[in-house]
């Protein structure tokens, strides 16, 4: 489903070139649940953003359903994100001036759904996540855990095949963190492909497999409990 072929990413801002990812190849089949771990600056988030069509590689290719994402224009990639990919952010990234239900409606509205249908689907998703009584609350009126649940509801709004989560539990307490992971496991069981970046080994362990990144390279891959060195 998702595939990276010999991808290198180097930044050239001010001063010498900085290579964040070096000659990375990853294959994520449909229905997989992959966690990516590694120290800060190892290129985890860069890799995730590239998989989501948000950041073009310096060299190499990224494929989604066999289509080379970076051979497409920015607006075509935006359309693919809208239809096939859901992002989960560490800081939730809810629109602060919209209510919970309106935040969930945003991807539906971007997808061209009519106003009434938008609201019906958004309400149903929020109720599924136990926020039926917080529909019209703004993010600032919700707890951190509730905000994360609104963000998760928003991810499911357009029924994406792929969910990319960047530190989904990074801002949560253990209990809420566990709920968020249960959610990701559940959507994975429903058949969605999940790729998650985390620095928390316990959280990473809940994925089907784990990729360890360091110095811009995949150092090892773990399936179940055993790490296999790939370097």
């Amino acid at each position, binding site marked *: 489903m998702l595939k990276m072929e010999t991808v290198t990413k180097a930044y050239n801002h001010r001063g010498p070139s900085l290579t964040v990812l070096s000659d990375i190849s990853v294959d994520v089949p449909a229905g997989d649940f992959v966690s990516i771990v590694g120290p800060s600056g190892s290129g985890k*988030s860069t890799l995730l*953003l590239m998989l*989501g069509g*948000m*950041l073009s590689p310096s060299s190499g290719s990224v494929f989604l359903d066999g289509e080379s994402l970076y051979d497409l224009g*920015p*607006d075509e990639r*935006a*359309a693919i*994100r*809208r*239809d096939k990919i859901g*992002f989960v*952010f560490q*800081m939730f*990234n809810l*629109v*602060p*001036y*919209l209510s919970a239900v*309106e935040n969930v*409606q*945003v*991807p*539906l*509205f*971007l*997808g061209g759904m009519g*106003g009434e249908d*938008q609201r019906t689907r958004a309400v149903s998703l929020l109720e599924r996540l136990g926020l039926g009584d917080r529909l019209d609350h703004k993010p600032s009126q919700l707890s951190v855990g509730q905000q994360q649940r609104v963000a998760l509801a*928003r991810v499911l709004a*357009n029924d994406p095949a792929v969910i990319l989560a960047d530190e989904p539990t990074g801002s949560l307490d253990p209990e809420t963190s566990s709920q968020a992971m249960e959610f990701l496991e559940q959507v994975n069981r429903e058949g969605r492909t999940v790729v998650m970046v985390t620095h928390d080994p316990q959280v990473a362990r809940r994925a089907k497999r784990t990729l360890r990144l360091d110095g811009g390279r995949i150092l090892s891959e773990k399936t179940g409990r055993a790490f296999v060195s790939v370097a």
Partner: protein
Amino acid sequence: MQLRKLVWKELFERKNQVFTGLLAILLGITVIVAIKNITFYSEKAVAQELDALGANILVLPKSVLLENYYSADMQGEEFPEEYVNRLSQSNLQGVDNLSPKLSVPVEIQGRKFTLTGILPKSEFQAKAAWQAAGIFSRPQGCGTVVAIPGLIPEQPKETLVRTRVIESLSDDEALVGGDVATSLGVKVNDAVSLMGKSFTVAAILPQTGTVDDSRIFAHLHTVQQLAGKGRVINVIEIVGCCDQISKGLVPKINSLLPEAKVVTITQVVDTQIKTNRMMSNLSFVFLVVIVLVGGASIANYMYGNVYERRREIGTLMALGAGSGFVLRMFLLKALLLGLAGGVAGYLMGTLLAVILGPKLAGIIVLPMPILVIWAVVISVIIALVASYFPARRAARLDPCSSLQEI
């Protein structure tokens, strides 16, 4: 959820910022609307004053000294009546009324008066229609309505004192000034003998406080005949349209009649022209100021807004919004700001004009709904142009860096 709702909610979320961003354009529109509103009613008031004065342009023989505007035709200097034809057959715009006169002194019951010959408008119309040309054969835009027998009733002869011309006057009819009527004790339909000819008093003219009160008016050609002077006149009185005088009617008449002296009530008209010019320049200056300051203020606000909303823009792009959507989102916001600035500026400017008009210009100022269109169009154009580059910057934001750097 719709784009409109998204933009609307964001505007309300940051009301204070919106207000400060909009302040410059709002104040600019307010001042321009107030100036335009007061100017309009000021011009109208001056035009009415000029109209009330009667003739505001005089065509005189070159050698006449202009010591008294109202008695400039009493100095015995003459020029050919043919000048009237040149004027009436010209393409001059803004000549409302045209009245050639020949004045001769007369003595009645031992008292000295002035017999003034005037040419009724019916004779111009006949001449113009016959020659298919001239100022009375085309529509006039200054409020003068040419009498059409059976359709528009002829105006009473007493209006001569204000309009300077009457529709018709027969050879043996006379119009008597207020002072003359009082002195001689004559009434309408009385017979009066002037220079050996008997006239019937067609009307007693109301008092004007000018030398006209001491005049008796009769048909020009009759007076010319009685005076034995041939087809000559002392003066052509012209009621010129006020704004056409501002646009140079006097020099145009001068070039048409180079042998004559053309004068106007210069002080009144000059003040009017200067006031108009000043107001027009002031409006232009303010327009430039609001375009620059208002535009800069809105652009500054929008750049700040784009910077502040990087995370939101990045999130929307991650959720599938294209660059076109982001551009539309900011331009729609600019459109709403422009509309709000225009409408609020119009309301505040109108209020200011209505309150300050009587105090500053001594005139009553009423709201001018047409200015709302003008205010909104200017305001929206400024807001859209000023917001275009910030909006384009937002549309070109790298969603990835806008998510990562915050």
